[in-house]
């Protein structure tokens, strides 16, 4: 018996309780380190009216892009639209509510959300449309904007390896936003490539301690590459 065992046996169980209108935080940068099977499960569940917080919104046909196609997202909080044609079109048509947020501010909003800090001042975005309607304040002669933290009803996370207690490590740059959203979710669901026994991961190497993790599942991943670039 272990009260710390976070493993669940199916993706359906992993996202049990996800309802229409909820806020979902997703890890990943572009298609790197995205919880692709959990996203697919949201599609299967047909949950709608979602607010999704993620640096990007996948691409057409993969990652969070599939939830745009199914019109499951009402509002997107992201820093970059980039080459995602459907995202850009839904934004310009006003079909999708979008809160474009500077990448560093987005990361810090999530970090703050997980760390119990309700808001913080940053110089980022001062004097730009991002600061519209927000409190500004001067410190030591410089202007800063008050930005509020983000927390989510669910956080969906892609890790590399975890032990059954939910201690997670990430691989290379697939880390990105994952540990931040992991800490900022009321219910945090992590999918990994490998689950090991507690004690097998060196404690000092753990990126996300199990205290942040509610559910853990092992999946297989396509890991699609967005821009395959090779040395000349």
């Amino acid at each position, binding site marked *: 018996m272990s009260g710390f065992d976070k493993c669940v046996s199916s993706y359906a169980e992993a996202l049990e309780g996800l309802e229409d209108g909820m806020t979902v935080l997703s890890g990943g940068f572009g298609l790197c380190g995205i919880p692709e099977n959990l996203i697919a499960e949201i599609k299967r569940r047909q949950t709608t009216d979602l607010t999704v917080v993620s640096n990007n919104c996948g691409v057409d046909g993969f990652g969070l892009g599939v939830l745009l196609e199914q019109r499951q997202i009402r509002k997107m909080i992201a820093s970059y639209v980039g080459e995602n044609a459907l995202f850009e079109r839904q934004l310009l048509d006003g079909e999708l509510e979008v809160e474009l947020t*500077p990448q560093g501010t987005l990361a810090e909003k999530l970090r703050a959300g997980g760390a119990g800090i309700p808001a913080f001042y940053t110089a980022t975005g001062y004097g*730009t449309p991002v600061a519209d309607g927000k409190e500004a304040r001067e410190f030591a002669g410089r202007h800063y904007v008050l930005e509020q933290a983000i927390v989510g009803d669910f956080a969906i996370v892609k890790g590399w390896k975890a032990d059954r207690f939910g201690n997670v490590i990430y691989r290379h740059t697939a880390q990105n936003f994952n540990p931040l959203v992991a800490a900022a979710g009321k219910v945090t669901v992590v999918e990994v490539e490998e689950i090991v026994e507690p004690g097998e991961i060196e404690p000092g190497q753990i990126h996300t301690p199990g205290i942040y993790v509610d559910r853990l599942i092992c999946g297989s991943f396509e890991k699609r590459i967005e821009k395959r670039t090779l040395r000349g």
Partner: protein
Amino acid sequence: MALTREQMAQRVARELQDGFYVNLGIGIPTLVANYVPEGMEVMLQSENGLLGMGPYPTEDELDADMINAGKQTVTARIGASIFDSAESFAMIRGGHIDLTVLGAFEVDVQGNIASWMVPGKLVKGMGGAMDLVAGAENIIVTMTHASKDGESKLLERCSLPLTGAGCIRRVLTDLAYLEIKDGAFVLRERAPGVSVEEIVARTAGRLVVPEHVPEMQV
């Protein structure tokens, strides 16, 4: 002759110093990495969480978990470190990056920069650009001097939504290297074979032309 993209990257590379931590944006800035002077060491920061970006991978090294901020597959050099996005922007916002090079749609005489959207037409998003321009002391903007339609991108006042206010001091275009000072562009260097008159004609914002404007060494 206007500078090629490669020549622009070469010119920017002359601003590098040994031991610099540098963030290079997408496009022309990325090319700067190809012109780091022999014997000089710089560490490239990629804001998705990599300090010490190496060259593109070989087929064998290709790894979906190893990308740069432009989403291209990359490698990590010896001495690199990898971290989460909050840590990455802590080093950017905290002023720890020695040089930032990024592109823009428009720059104006007040040091304002616009680079992330054209209302009603195009929305790329700001990505990390707003944090980079707010956090860095030492920024070089690289862009063409004029748009494809011949409209100057060096303006009295930016017409597009801003990325940052009053944060740009140096601009390298395909025609000139300029400093922004006291509400004007100051022409510091001109591209080889480009006349001062041509630069004057293509600069919409107030331009100060010193008595001697040397030709750029590229």
